[in-house]
């Protein structure tokens, strides 16, 4: 039986560990890189090295930041309101909220959600540091902005229970109809959730 040369096999194995990539796509990608012009492979290699060398996680909120900095831009900015924390699943969610230009508080990135099936419990997420931040007393509102999925909701429920006893005000991001969306075309679950989360007009 012919064995693949070691470097190729190593690459395939490494690619296979990525989410959403099976053995078939892993070998396809590896052979693509083998055939590709020199700089394509080099670019990728450089990008990967830079990722680990130049990027780090903020020690305060666990958002991504440049390597060597202890805290991210948001955490260091004196303009941001330290009294409000928005709790999100991933750093990408921070980006999405920042793009709105309408949020002036700080963040806390959990790096995932509770999911016993995948073996992920509260201790595997950045929940302890969140509690510690709140315990320091500066925070008066925590906005739970995990996704409206079952696991996102469960994580929010867990956080609510943990934070409530610290006497902080806990809110959950409203879920409802998309702006510019037509009631008629909204899917049932969105509509039901919008109905359940209806608000008094003032």
């Amino acid at each position, binding site marked *: 039986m012919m064995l693949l040369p070691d470097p190729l096999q190593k690459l395939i194995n490494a690619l296979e560990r990525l989410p959403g990539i*099976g*053995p*078939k796509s892993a070998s396809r990608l590896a052979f693509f890189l083998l055939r590709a012009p020199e700089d394509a492979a080099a670019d990728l290699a450089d990008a990967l090295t830079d990722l680990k060398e130049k990027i780090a996680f903020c020690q305060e909120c666990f958002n991504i930041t440049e390597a060597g900095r202890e805290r991210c831009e948001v955490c260091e900015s004196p303009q941001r309101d330290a009294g409000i924390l928005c709790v999100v699943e991933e750093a990408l969610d921070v980006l999405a909220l920042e793009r709105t230009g309408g949020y002036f508080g700080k963040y806390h990135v959990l790096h995932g959600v*509770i*999911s*016993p*099936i995948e*073996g992920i*419990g*509260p201790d595997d997420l950045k929940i302890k540091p969140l509690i510690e931040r709140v315990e320091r007393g500066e925070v008066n509102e925590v906005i739970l902005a995990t996704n409206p999925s*079952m*696991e996102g*909701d*469960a*994580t929010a*429920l*867990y956080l609510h*229970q943990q934070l409530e006893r610290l006497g902080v005000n806990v809110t959950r991001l409203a879920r409802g109809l998309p702006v510019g969306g037509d009631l008629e075309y909204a*899917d*049932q*679950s969105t509509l*039901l959730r919008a109905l359940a989360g209806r608000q008094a007009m003032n």
Partner: protein
Amino acid sequence: MYLNHLSITNFRNFARLDIDIPRRVILLVGDNAQGKTSLLEAVYFLAACTSFQTNVDRQVVNFLEAKGDSLAVARLVAEFQKGNSRHRLEVRLILEPIGSNGKRLRKEVLVDGVKKPVNEAIGLFNAVVFVPQMSQIIEGRPEERRRYLDLALAQVIPAYTRTLSEYGQALSQRNALLKLLNERGGDVDQLFVWDETLSRLGSEIILWRIRAVQELERFAGRTHHRLTNGSEILRLAYQPSYDPLPKPEGQIPMELDTPVDRSNLKLEEIQIGFTERLNQLRQEEIARGVTTIGPQRDEIRLLANGLDLGDYGSRGQIRTALLSLKLAEVEWMKERTGHWPVILFDEVMAELDLQRRSDLLAYLEESEQVLLTATDVNMFAPGFIEQAAVWDVQAGTVKNRSPEA
């Protein structure tokens, strides 16, 4: 409601079928293994987005089409009339190759040309199906009865399917956590989150089931009384695994045939009670590593004159009870949705005596559209045949015997 047109591609032994359907009784006549049941299965698939047989969805794709390792597609398209509006419903079953030699079934649904989540398409078109093997609903294991009830509810309550599948997801998460706590220990407080989620979704399912069984029983009891010339009282006894009604402590278990009225229960009461019960069971469930109560363990028993039909019913009794149940489903759906469902009855005549045949046919003539199968058209009275359209089913093709009518 009724079908105006049906087209079928690569479904069971139908490679291709394109046919207009009249609004009345249609007799599907043909020898064994020609495709009569398959045609009913196709129509039912449009209502439930699944087969009426358990776990066979991938088997409905035509063998020849599914052979080999390329993509295979079965397609059902129906045009149907519901009250004043006409709709087009398309279901695609796509068997796609994954990995080295596996295949995965994917379903796509289009309503009036627009792609919709499968959960939302269920129940737009309604059908009630009867096939002789369904005596398993009465004789078989509890999951047969739960599946029966779930499929019926899915067509009537728009949010039912989604709630049921979310409940399943919450149950898997909770069971995974119980197992983790059992094997490795850890913070037991984490269970609170899944107790909440499970009881919130579970209480909705329990309440829908309470109401459905009660309403079905009302219709089935009446029909069964008539079908048995007043000799049998049929009862449906819902036995929820988490029973929101307080059990009389320390007493002998309640007799099965004592009707229990749970209809006044409120959703919040059920949810609170469910959570409390999960709390009481916490140590035991951690020890067993599994959730021990909830809709996944519900039971429904059918009783005739107080006797459990699953255990003691004769063949004829079971067949009649099944027919009562199916006719009740028709009435219930009509009451709940405001429209007649399309009725799909497979070989229902064969085991009925003459009197019951003519009673049944008289009832069916009142409905909007019925598809009835038989190997022999003489199973039906000449007067009835005259009123009906007769279709010859042969080797995956259908010919209208009386096209001018």
